[in-house]
């Protein structure tokens, strides 16, 4: 049975009782260009719906209606993978009546599929929908590429609502969201603003410290034998990660090495390597720029994947189970190699795991790249403010002044010590930073616990404290 098509949200709410359903989910593929969350939540504000539990896959600064609902006390709890901007600041300062739960991309999908997180209504921005409710993200007026973070929601929500501005007359043959899972399609004028959809952070760094970190990283990967025929690789869209990818591509060209796959968030730089024959497949859970979106639409070896297939440890086809190398960032690391990308050193929420813990857990080699100091704050703490990723999953920490190897990776350490690379203990690396900055006094965390960091295993990794 095809879904019911509505021509406005007002019409939708004649079918759905807005007061009855409290657990609402959204995806963040439109990032700062998303209109759907604000538009939908405006109705919940106007109807004064109380006790909401929101499950957005991430929260961006432009999601201002969420802030308004928080200030009015209509939101009890929030479960998400990443948040920054005013909402993050507000929750850090005030907490919630209920709880903030920070998940991972794989953990969120797993939890929804397992029914641990119940979604009553999923409101999913869908760039292109056909008459049967099938949807893809790489067609339409406001394309975002992969819809990976929305798939579990579409399959397991009590009610699945697609919000679109593009209904195609031709059927979509290989949809990311299946029409059989869709209950309603709401047609609006625009689901987003193209300028905010692409993240705009996808340029290769030329900052001398970033350049140094990238070249040390590639040299270390080479020394441990990771750059070999058929290797698999993931790096984010940060400037240092992209520089690592770029330098890798040069080595791969010289030595005629082809990678098997790249996974995760995909940029034009990854696409260029696919098209140059340097990598066989791209497994794309999220497109970071339009070059990636275009490639997804035309190239069969650029494959959109769901968050579950990407990173759910219970998914039999989990892509990152075959991952050899992942390059990840850090706000803080500690002497046990734990990584924080959830809060800053003042205890304010500034991000979250996304796929950090997922990929670190699965990858054969996990490399953290970061400047040793940011401003006056040293990277390496005795204990991170918040654990996002456990130290046992981290193998190398590469900074501009040295490389630390996890003590249990004696294999990697032995190989690196045969080179002239600056390999040292993490304590030494910390001491180098302190010789410039002095030892920081850690501000005490607030007494009230406002949330938790939940790993993909469902283990609670750490508590999140209210900002003092």
């Amino acid at each position, binding site marked *: 049975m095809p879904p019911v098509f509505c021509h406005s949200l007002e019409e939708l709410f004649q079918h759905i009782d807005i007061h009855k359903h409290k657990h609402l989910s959204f995806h963040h593929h439109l990032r700062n260009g998303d209109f759907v969350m604000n538009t939908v939540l405006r109705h919940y504000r106007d109807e004064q719906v109380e006790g909401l539990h929101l499950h957005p896959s991430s929260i961006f600064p432009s999601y201002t209606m969420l802030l308004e609902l928080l200030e009015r006390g209509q939101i009890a709890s929030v479960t998400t993978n990443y948040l920054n901007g005013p909402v993050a600041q507000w929750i850090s300062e005030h907490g919630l009546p209920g709880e903030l739960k920070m998940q991972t991309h794989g953990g969120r999908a797993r939890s929804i599929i397992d029914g641990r997180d119940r979604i009553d209504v999923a409101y999913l921005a869908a760039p292109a929908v056909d008459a049967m409710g099938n949807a893809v993200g790489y067609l339409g007026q406001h394309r975002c590429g992969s819809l990976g973070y929305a798939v579990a929601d579409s399959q397991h929500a009590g009610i699945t609502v697609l919000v679109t501005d593009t209904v195609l007359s031709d059927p979509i043959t290989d949809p990311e969201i299946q029409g059989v899972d869709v209950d309603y399609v709401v047609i609006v004028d625009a689901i987003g603003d193209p300028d905010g959809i692409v993240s705009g952070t996808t340029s290769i760094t030329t900052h001398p410290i970033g350049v140094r970190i990238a070249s040390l990283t590639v040299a270390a990967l080479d020394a441990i034998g990771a750059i070999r025929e058929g290797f698999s690789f993931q790096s984010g869209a940060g400037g240092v990660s992209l520089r690592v990818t770029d330098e890798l591509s040069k080595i791969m060209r010289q030595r005629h090495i082809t990678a098997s796959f790249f996974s995760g968030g995909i940029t034009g730089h990854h696409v260029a390597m696919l098209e140059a024959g340097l990598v066989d497949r791209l497994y794309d859970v999220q497109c970071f720029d339009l070059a990636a979106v275009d490639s997804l639409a035309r190239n069969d070896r650029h494959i959109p994947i769901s968050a579950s297939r990407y990173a759910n440890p219970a998914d039999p086809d989990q892509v990152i189970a075959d991952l050899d190398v992942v390059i990840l960032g850090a706000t803080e690391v500690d002497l046990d190699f734990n990584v924080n990308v959830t809060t800053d*050193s003042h205890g304010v929420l500034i991000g979250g795991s996304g796929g950090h813990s997922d990929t670190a857990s699965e990858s054969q080699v996990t490399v953290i790249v970061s400047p040793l100091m940011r*401003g*006056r704050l040293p990277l390496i703490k005795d204990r991170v403010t918040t654990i996002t990723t456990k130290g046992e999953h981290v193998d190398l920490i590469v900074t501009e002044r040295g490389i630390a190897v996890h003590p249990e990776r004696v294999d990697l350490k032995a190989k690196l010590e045969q080179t002239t690379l600056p390999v040292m203990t993490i304590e030494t690396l910390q001491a180098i930073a302190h010789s*410039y*900055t*002095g030892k920081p*006094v850690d501000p005490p965390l607030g007494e009230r616990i406002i949330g938790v960091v939940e790993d993909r295993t469902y283990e609670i990794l750490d508590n999140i404290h209210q900002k003092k």
Partner: protein
Amino acid sequence: MNVTAGTYESSDCLIRLSPSTTRKVIVESIVFDQFGDAIQRVLNDTLDQYGVSAVQVECFDKGALDYTVRARLITALKRGGYIE
């Protein structure tokens, strides 16, 4: 007369001196929790070293290291004629 040295840019600090009959040292910093005491100490030690006791020092810090804080203060003291 107020004199300044430095900038309010990342990894720098802006020092402003104003006339005062006693020594006052005021620190604002993006890393105040972690390094507020350390910055205060560098400012006071530098004033002690140059024997300056009658001045108000305001430091607006954006993560400057100790030697930067010290250099900015010395420059401001010279500009203001507090020291040679």
